[in-house]
């Protein structure tokens, strides 16, 4: 049996001394798409931040194993360079840095760290044009400051553009569907689907089932009060849509 790409073992995570996650176990193999669903405050975002290595989120016990190695002590940039990517629920605005400059700086920081050749101006331009087309992002958005004055939909598409450019192995998407109208949702889903590959895994965190109509997950997990209450196939998402989360709360 092959080893999982990402394995989360009895993970406990605290913010400011308050424990949010009370023992998460999750195993994601290469090429799989997992969805995490749950109500607000169930710990979904905390899990994504812990995987990406946000310094405010402390792993108090348990472990995160990525490509066979524990990463809980690794810096966020080292995780990124090893192929972990987090699409933010609330993308940060960076006035004064053009999207293009930022993307190239990020790509080259990662390539350099991996001992690969940095992208030249011309190569990068060709790459970004191709990826922007995929995400239906026009050139104007590339030359504007990162996320500054972007609409909600543009910000989310911009996150997926970063995913497309950086080509991570483990992509974690934190409520990428929230605040999107149906057209934007379809664009995002098309982008994600085109990036699915046998070597790349996804963890989709979402509140609603509708994203999963467009991106078919292999597994669905329900998070409740910092624990995984139930795991199943994609049919679990439909069940949640129909019944809501209350029946699970009673079951726990």
């Amino acid at each position: 049996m092959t080893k999982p790409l990402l394995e989360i073992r009895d993970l406990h995570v605290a913010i400011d001394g308050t424990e949010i996650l009370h023992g998460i176990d999750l195993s994601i193999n290469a090429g799989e798409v997992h969805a995490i669903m749950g109500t607000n405050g169930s710990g979904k975002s905390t899990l994504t931040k812990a995987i990406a290595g946000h310094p405010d989120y402390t792993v108090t016990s348990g472990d995160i194993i990525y490509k066979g190695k524990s990463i809980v002590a690794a810096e966020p940039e080292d995780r990124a360079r090893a192929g972990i990517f987090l699409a933010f629920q609330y993308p940060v605005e960076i006035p004064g840095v053009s999207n293009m400059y930022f993307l190239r700086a990020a790509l080259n920081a990662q390539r350099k760290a991996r001992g690969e050749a940095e992208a030249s101006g011309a190569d990068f331009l060709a790459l970004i044009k191709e990826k922007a087309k995929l995400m239906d992002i026009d050139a104007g958005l590339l030359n504007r400051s990162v996320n500054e004055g972007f609409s909600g939909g543009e910000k989310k598409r911009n996150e997926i553009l970063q995913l497309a450019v950086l080509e991570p192995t483990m992509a974690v998407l934190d409520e990428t569907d929230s605040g999107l109208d149906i057209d934007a949702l379809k664009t995002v889903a098309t982008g994600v689907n085109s990036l699915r590959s046998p070597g790349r895994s996804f963890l989709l965190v979402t509140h609603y089932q509708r994203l999963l109509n467009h991106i078919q997950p292999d597994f669905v997990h329900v998070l409740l009060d910092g624990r995984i209450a139930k795991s199943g196939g994609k049919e679990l998402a439909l069940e949640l849509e129909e019944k809501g989360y209350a029946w699970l709360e009673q079951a726990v």
Partner: protein
Amino acid sequence: MTTQTHNSLQLAIDAFTPPSAEPAWLSELRQDAADSFTALDVPTIRHEDWRYTNLKPLLALKLAAAARAPITLDDLKPWLIDGADDIRLVFVNGFFDGTLSRIPALPEGVLIAPLSQLFGGDEGLPGKLARFADHHAQPFTALNTALFTDGAYIRAGRDAVLDAPVHVLYVSTGGQINAPRTLLLAGENAGIALVESFVGLAGESRFVNAVSEVMLASGANVRHAKLLRDPAASHIGWNEVRQDRDSAYTHHSISLDAQLARHNVNVMLAGEGAACTLNGLVLGNDTQHIDNHLVVDHMRPRCTSNQLYRSVVDGKSRSVFSGKVIVRPGAAGTDARQQNNNLLLSDDARAETRPQLEIYCDEVKCAHGATSGQLDPDAVFFLRSRGLDTRQARNLLTYAFANDVVEHIKMDAVRQHLEEVMHERFHGLLGE
């Protein structure tokens, strides 16, 4: 009354002899300024306008008189601006260097020359020089007027437009006291762009005491950048601007390096509908102290003023921003905005901010805002999650913060030059 504190500066005045024979009006002006200096007190931190900037270290410097020094084009290279150097005046310790300067053929009505070549001519300097820089009120203006040996004269007559910027480089060497002087006159509907670079290499501490006078007749348009890049300098600059009806003045003060700097920018909006934009950037580190002190006087109706000053302070450096807007009685329809943002990169860095409004008129629109803070930790994390290390993330965010001022510079060559300088300063991320 001569006080104990300005002895070293008084000595400089007492020891001064003009480099060549001067016309009577200039000798009289100098004498008047010298007398004023002697009568005025050098400000201390007990003066309201100087409470954050202590001049004691400056007054303690042992300063030599300004003297000629050999400078080569190679020496100048770091400070030249590709695309903005076709018209160039170079002064070394206050002395014009003709071999390093370039004055090509100019459009009708435009004159660019060292002041010293015009002292005795028919350009009318006696009525123009020292008209708005008041040496009776300001001791440092008096000191400059008593000591300046030369300077830049830029005149664009009525309807004359010169698109290429004029680059004036004031180079300082050694531990001297220097008195750069600029006079810019823009006639009716004239348009001109000026870059003043105050430059020098690390070395003995020096005192650069500059005065620039800028006059805009009605409808004139002047773009003006002041770049300070002299790590050994205590720099005090007085920038006196008078604007007539419907004129537009843009000032960019960029402090890249100095031990101590105090930039005074005084703008008189003396004609209806005049507009000024004053932007500034401070990049401070070590123990540098950079003080920007602005006064915009809305004297007539329907003038607009816009100030955006930002500082980035690291190490034990300190920045000061005082921006005063005065709206005179009758200046209805005034639109004045002030914004000051400070980024503190270390625990020991400090930023003082004092936006002030004095309004003596109804029907005005005035807004001011100030922020001081550290880098946004969420933004740092965002960049780290994309693979930049902490240093790169902080540098990129710092660059972005500072560049918000630079990107307003409409002189393309100057803006591009400063972007490159900042890339270098913040360890260019792209590596090529």
